[in-house]
């Protein structure tokens, strides 16, 4: 009989949803169908569940609901069998296609939750031009891809504007046959008209950091001298929205235990004019007072549901806001290999430190045990690189039975290896960080609810209990 692990039931506010793990189908259930599937979830016996449900809801209604469940199963949209992807074995390719250049470890801010290790921040290194050129040569030499991506990151990358401009010019000169995609992650303090023009000229994607309401933003995002930055960032963002409508960008913020009502921060950012927003859970040592804990998950799940409704209400009022993690493409989306391997850190994506050190991603910079090599000598830890390549969904016991596995991709390697930012003993690429899993699951429930809210209740369908 069917395996209930392959269907996730979600009660979101007044809606009851069923997500079919192996097909990606999403259904809304009325009270009868919900009750029937809950009974089946508890008992594992379909025929008995139908009989028990008939006692509660009446034979005629339950027979009709059961027939619909069976028809959806036959159509491949409910209790869909496992597609057999567990046979997946990572091949040698595709190869490197993206670099994160830490062009400046230096920063003009001192954010309380910054994940960059202290010794890296105090080093204040700036990536010299020769390292930037060597990194781009390394990417061109390592990759046969037509599409190549380079993210300028920090610290605050705009403390090395000369390096960014040199890097873009060098990439376009040395790889004229490649389709380059540049991105810039900035705290916006130095994002003036000149920088804006440069990013527009070269079709940059921008990640602009702002946490939302001024009191929230200024809790953590302070200058090195300890002053709040909310007012100047708000001005920078408003200037940018007026000037660069249409440029690919996201306003990206962090929420912590101190603002679990983060829908209000999305509301604030929308009021500034932001139409593409990403708010993400803080990555922090669990001992920090602002760190998230498992006991916060129910509250966070409810907040994601609240956010979904807020976004749909805004759409009804004519204001469409793209919340990054709610943008799920269930009928399409990436291929199976991508779904099973996640971000590609360690082999498709590498971070380069100012000294030319190569790391699996920007979150590993400053952790020497995860240094893969350097630009002068190339990859010197192919064994470690292979560990990242092999850390796919079906290599992780916790992921194999998780309902979110094909939407998540196996979780963040850095959080798994560094155990949530604490560098706790026992961190492992083969075991996702439990708290991060629960946060992703709660967010995905919110994303599925957002999809459901986009469809009006159909006439004749009873509202779910």
């Amino acid at each position: 009989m069917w395996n209930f692990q392959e269907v996730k039931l979600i009660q979101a506010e007044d809606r009851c949803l069923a997500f079919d793990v192996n097909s990606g189908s999403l259904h809304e259930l009325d009270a009868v169908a919900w009750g029937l599937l809950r009974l089946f979830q508890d008992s594992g016996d379909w025929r008995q569940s139908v009989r028990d449900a008939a006692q509660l809801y009446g034979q005629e209604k339950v027979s009709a609901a059961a027939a619909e469940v069976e028809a959806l199963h036959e159509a491949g949209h409910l209790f869909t069998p496992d597609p057999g992807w567990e046979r997946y074995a990572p091949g040698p390719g595709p190869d490197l296609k993206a670099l994160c250049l830490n062009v400046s470890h230096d920063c003009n801010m001192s954010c309380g939750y910054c994940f960059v290790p202290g010794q890296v921040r105090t080093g204040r290194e700036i990536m010299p031009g020769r390292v930037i050129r060597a990194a781009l040569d390394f990417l061109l030499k390592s990759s046969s891809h037509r599409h190549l991506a380079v993210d300028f990151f920090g610290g605050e990358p705009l403390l090395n504007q000369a390096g960014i401009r040199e890097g873009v010019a060098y990439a376009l000169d040395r790889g004229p046959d490649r389709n380059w995609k540049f991105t810039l992650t900035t705290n916006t303090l130095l994002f003036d008209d000149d920088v804006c023009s440069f990013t527009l000229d070269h079709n940059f994607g921008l990640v602009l950091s702002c946490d939302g309401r001024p009191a929230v933003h200024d809790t953590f995002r302070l200058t090195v001298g300890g002053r709040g930055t909310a007012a100047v960032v708000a001005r920078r963002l408003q200037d940018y929205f007026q000037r660069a409508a249409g440029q690919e960008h996201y306003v990206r913020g962090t929420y912590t235990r101190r603002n679990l009502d983060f829908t209000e921060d999305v509301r604030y950012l929308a009021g500034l004019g932001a139409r593409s927003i990403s708010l993400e859970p803080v990555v922090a040592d669990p001992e920090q007072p602002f760190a998230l804990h498992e006991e916060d998950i129910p509250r966070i799940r409810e907040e994601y549901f609240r956010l979904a409704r807020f976004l749909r209400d805004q759409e009804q009022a004519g204001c469409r806001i793209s919340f990054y993690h709610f943008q799920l493409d269930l009928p399409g989306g990436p291929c199976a290999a991508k779904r099973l391997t996640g971000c590609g850190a360690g082999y498709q994506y590498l971070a380069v430190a100012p000294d030319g050190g190569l790391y699996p991603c920007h979150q590993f910079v400053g952790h020497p045990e995860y240094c893969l090599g350097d630009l002068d000598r190339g990859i010197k830890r192919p064994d470690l690189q292979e560990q990242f390549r092999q850390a796919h969904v079906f290599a992780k016991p916790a992921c194999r039975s998780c309902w979110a596995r094909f939407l998540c991709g196996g979780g963040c390697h850095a959080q798994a290896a560094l155990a949530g930012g604490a560098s706790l003993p026992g961190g492992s690429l083969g075991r996702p960080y439990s708290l991060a899993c629960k946060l992703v699951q709660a967010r995905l429930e919110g994303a599925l609810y957002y999809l459901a809210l986009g469809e009006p209740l159909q006439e004749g369908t009873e509202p779910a209990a």
Partner: protein
Amino acid sequence: MKKTGHIRTIVAGSKPLLTPECGDCQTSVGNQTCGI
């Protein structure tokens, strides 16, 4: 679905196994789009 039904299909999900990994998608997965 039937108007009088108990279940409304919001998304009929789906097939990419048939597509070899081309590698043209952006590195970051449910939020990703296919590179093809």
